[in-house]
C-alpha cells in the first residue's frame, strides 16, 4: 500500500518537474478547426473548445499545481514547528502572546482573506501562497505546542536541561525528533489543503490569467464541454483527488511507522 502511494506521488513529482517537456503538443497550440473532441489516438484525452490538447495542458499544469502547495507546506511546517516548539518549551509570556495571536488568526475566515489578498494585490499566486502559509500555521502551532509541552516534562528533557544544554539545542535536537511523526504528517496535510485551495481559487478565476494551463482553471474553462469532451474537465479533478488522497494516506502511514520507530 505504501509502495503504491509513494509511486503515485513520485510520478506526480516527476511530471511536475518535467511535465512541459513530456507534453506531446504545445499546450497553448490551438486548432480551432478541430474544436472540442473526445479522446483519440492523436489526443489521448481529447481537446478543448479551442482545440488545445488536454493531455499536454494537464502535464504542463502539473508544475504550478504542485510547486506552490509544496512551498506552502514548507513554509507552514517551518513556521509552525519552530513557533510551536518555542511556545511549548518556553511557556510563560512567550506562549501567552503566541496563543492569543493564534486565537486571532483562527477568527479570520481563511478563504475570504485569500480572495481579498489576491483581489487587492493581484499578480499571480505569489501573495496567495504567502497568505496561505500564514493562515495554515496557527492550527499546526497549537498541535506542535501541545506535543512539546508533553515532551518537555519527560525525564530525558529534564536531564538535558540539567546538563546545561542551550534551549535551542534541547528544542531541536531532543524534542523535535520525538514529535517528528506529527510534523511530517502535518506537512503532508498542509500540502493537500494548499493544493485543493489553490485549485479552488483558480476555479473561481482568481490568481492566474485566463488561458494558463492550470488544473483549477481547466475545470472552470472546460465545464461547459461536458457533453463534447468530458475529460477536459474531469481529468484535472481526478488528478487532484488522486494526489490529494495519496498524500493524506501516506502522511497517515508515515506517522504510524515513524512513531513506532522513534519512541516507545
Amino acid at each position, binding site marked *: 500500500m505504501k509502495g503504491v502511494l509513494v509511486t503515485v506521488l513520485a510520478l506526480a513529482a516527476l511530471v511536475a518537474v518535467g511535465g512541459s517537456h513530456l507534453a506531446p503538443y504545445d499546450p497553448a497550440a490551438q486548432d480551432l478547426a478541430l474544436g472540442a473532441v473526445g479522446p483519440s489516438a492523436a489526443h489521448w484525452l481529447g481537446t478543448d473548445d479551442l482545440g488545445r490538447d488536454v493531455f499536454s495542458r494537464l502535464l504542463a499544469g502539473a508544475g504550478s499545481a504542485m510547486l506552490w502547495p509544496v512551498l506552502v507546506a514548507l513554509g507552514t511546517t517551518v513556521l509552525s514547528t519552530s513557533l510551536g516548539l518555542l511556545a511549548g518549551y518556553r511557556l510563560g509570556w512567550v506562549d501567552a502572546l503566541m496563543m492569543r495571536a493564534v486565537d486571532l488568526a483562527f477568527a479570520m475566515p481563511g478563504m475570504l482573506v485569500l480572495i481579498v489578498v489576491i483581489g487587492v494585490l493581484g499578480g499571480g499566486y505569489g501573495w496567495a501562497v504567502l497568505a496561505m502559509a500564514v493562515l495554515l500555521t496557527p492550527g499546526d502551532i497549537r498541535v506542535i505546542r501541545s506535543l512539546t509541552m508533553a515532551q518537555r516534562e*519527560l*525525564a530525558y528533557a529534564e*536531564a538535558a536541561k540539567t546538563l546545561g544544554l542551550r534551549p535551542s539545542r534541547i528544542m531541536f535536537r*531532543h524534542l523535535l525528533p520525538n514529535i517528528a511523526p506529527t510534523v511530517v504528517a502535518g506537512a503532508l496535510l498542509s500540502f493537500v489543503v494548499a493544493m485543493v485551495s489553490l485549485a479552488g481559487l483558480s476555479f473561481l478565476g482568481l490568481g492566474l490569467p485566463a488561458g494558463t494551463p492550470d488544473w483549477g482553471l481547466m475545470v472552470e474553462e472546460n465545464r461547459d464541454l461536458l457533453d463534447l469532451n468530458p475529460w477536459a474537465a474531469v481529468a484535472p479533478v481526478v488528478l487532484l483527488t488522486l494526489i490529494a488522497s495519496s498524500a493524506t494516506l501516506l502522511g497517515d502511514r508515515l506517522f504510524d511507522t515513524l512513531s513506532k520507530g522513534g519512541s516507545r
Partner: protein
Amino acid sequence: MTLLDVTGLTVTGRHLIVDGVDLAVSAGETVGLVGESGSGKSLTARAVAGLLPKGLTATGSVTLSGLELLGARERVLRSVRGARVALLMQDPFAMLNPLCTAGVHIAESLPRSPRPPSPFPPTDPGASPFGTVPADPGASPALPQGSGAAPTRWTRATRRAEVLRRLAEVGIDDPSVADRYPFQLSGGMRQRVALAAALARDPELLIADEPTTALDATTQHEILMLLRNVQRARGMGVLLITHDLRVAFELCDRVAVMYAGRLVESGPGFDMAKVPAHPYTAGLLAALPSATVTLSRLEGIPGGVPAAGDVTGTCAFAARCGQADSECTQERPPLREIAPDRHTACLYEVRPRPRAEPRAVTPREASADETLLRIEGLRKRYGGHVALGGVSLRVGRGESVGVVGESGSGKTTLARCVLGLVTPDEGRIELAGLDLTRRARGGGQAHRLVQCVFQDPTTSLNPSLTVGSTLAEAAAQGTPEGRLSVAELLDLVGLPASYAARRPRALSGGQRQRVAIARALAVRPALLICDEPVASLDVSVQAHVLELLRTIGRELGTSLLFITHDLAVVRQITDRTVVLFRGDVVEEGETARILDAPAHDYTRRLLASVPPTP
C-alpha cells in the same frame, strides 16, 4: 474445595508468552503469583478473566467451580466477570472514571436487584482494625417490604444505604466520600473505592493485579491488611499478582513463582521464604534489600529474563543459575513434588547461598566534614499546597545522604530545586560555595557540579538518540580535562562498548538506568541526585543498580543525595538519612541509628509498614 483450577494454561501471541501454567485457588485461600516484569504473570491473570488483549490466544483449561472459562462465549464470561470473578487493577489513578463519584462506581457495580439474604454477612467490625462501622440498622439495606423472597428493585434510599455499607466494608466510614470524585481522593482511598466496587457483586474469586504497587509504603500496608481482612470475612478466594516477594509472603497462604512464562516453584509462602527450592527464588530472596541490616554487597541475578519461546526445551533459568550443569539443558525439568504441596522445577537441591555479611559500618573515608551542599530554610508552595516548608540539610563531600518520605512529602520538589528545575520561593541553596538560588545559577557552572538520575527508565533517555550520542553530548558539557569517552562511560556502568550504537528501546529497564547513570556522571559532578532510581526496576536488577551506585560513589568520590520511599534501599546506600513529612524535616541522623531506633512517630510508622524481609 477448589474454586479456580488452571491447568496447562498457555498464552501465545507472536511468540510464546505463558507456557503451561498449573494453578489452583481454593475458596478462602490467598494465592500469590510472583514474578518479575515479562514473566507472564499479568497475562496469566488476564487469561483467567477472559480479558486477553487482541492478538493473544490462550489454550489449556481454566475452570471456575467446574465451569470451563477458556473458550467460553462472551455471554458466559460476562455473567462470570464481576459476579463471580472480580478484578482489582494496579493503577488507582486510571482505574476509576474521573467523571463519576465514588458512590456511582459502587452503585453501578451492585447486582441488579438487592439480594435479601446476602450470601456474605457484613464484615464483622471486630475483624477490621480500621474502625469499620456498619451503617446503623435503620439505614441497612432495606429488605423488600411485604413479600419476603421476591427480590425487588433498588430504591434510591436502599441503594444509597448499600453503597455506604460497602464503603464501610473497605474501611471508609465517612459517608461524604460517596459523593466525591476520584481526583478528590488519595491513592489509597481510590484503591479502597475500587475494591468496594470489585466486591459489589460478592464475587467468589478476586484477582488483584499489583494492587499496591502504585501506593506509598504505609498505604500499601493498610490496603494489604484490608485485603486480608475482607478475604477472611468473606471466605473469598484471592489470586494476588505481584512482583514483590515480601508482599506475597506477608499476605498469601500459597505462593507460585513464575519465570519466563512458566512456574518454577510453588508452595506455602512461609516455607518458601525459609528454604527456597529453586535457585531463581533463592536469587530473588538474596537480592532483596533489607531495612534492618546493611549488607556489604548487594547481589542481583546476573543476566536477563529469556523469552519463554527460547527456552522451551531446557530449564528456563539455567543460563543465569550458579549451580546449573549439563543435565539442566537436556530437557525441561518437570515441576516435581518435594514435600506435600511443595513443588519445584529444579532438578537439584538448592545450595544455600552465603548471605552477604553485614557491612561494618564505616562511614566513608572522604572528608564528610567539608560541606558540599548546604540548604537553608527552603520553601516552595504550589497554590495552597506547601511542598517545602523550610527545609534545611547539608551533604558533606563524598557523603551519601538519603531523603525519605512518601508522595507529597516534598522530596522530589527538593531535588528539583537543587537541580534548578524549580525555583524555590525562599531559602538558600549553596553547592561548593556557589549560590544556586539566584537566576544565574552559579554563573552557568551548576550543571558541572550536580546531576540527576531520574526515576522512570522508560522516559529517562531520549528515544530518538543512540546511547552513544546521548553520552557524548553529556560528556561535552563537562570540563575538557579528564573528560571520559563514551566507551569509558559505558564501562563505568558495566555495559559493553557496543551498546553505544543502540537506541533506548533496545535496552532493558535496568540497562537504561545504567545509561542514565553514565550520562549523569559524564560531567564528573560533585553531587549526584538520585530520584527513586530503582523504584520501577525488578528486584534482581535493582540490586545491580544499587550496587553500581554504591561503588561509583565510593570510587569517584561523588556525593549522593538519594531520594526514595524505600527504607530498605536507604539502609543499603546512605550514610545519613533525612526524613521528610509534608514538607518538613522530622528526623535526621545516621541511617543505621534512624532505622534501628527511630525517634519520630512518622519514621516509626514508615518502618512498621516495610514488609518483613524473609
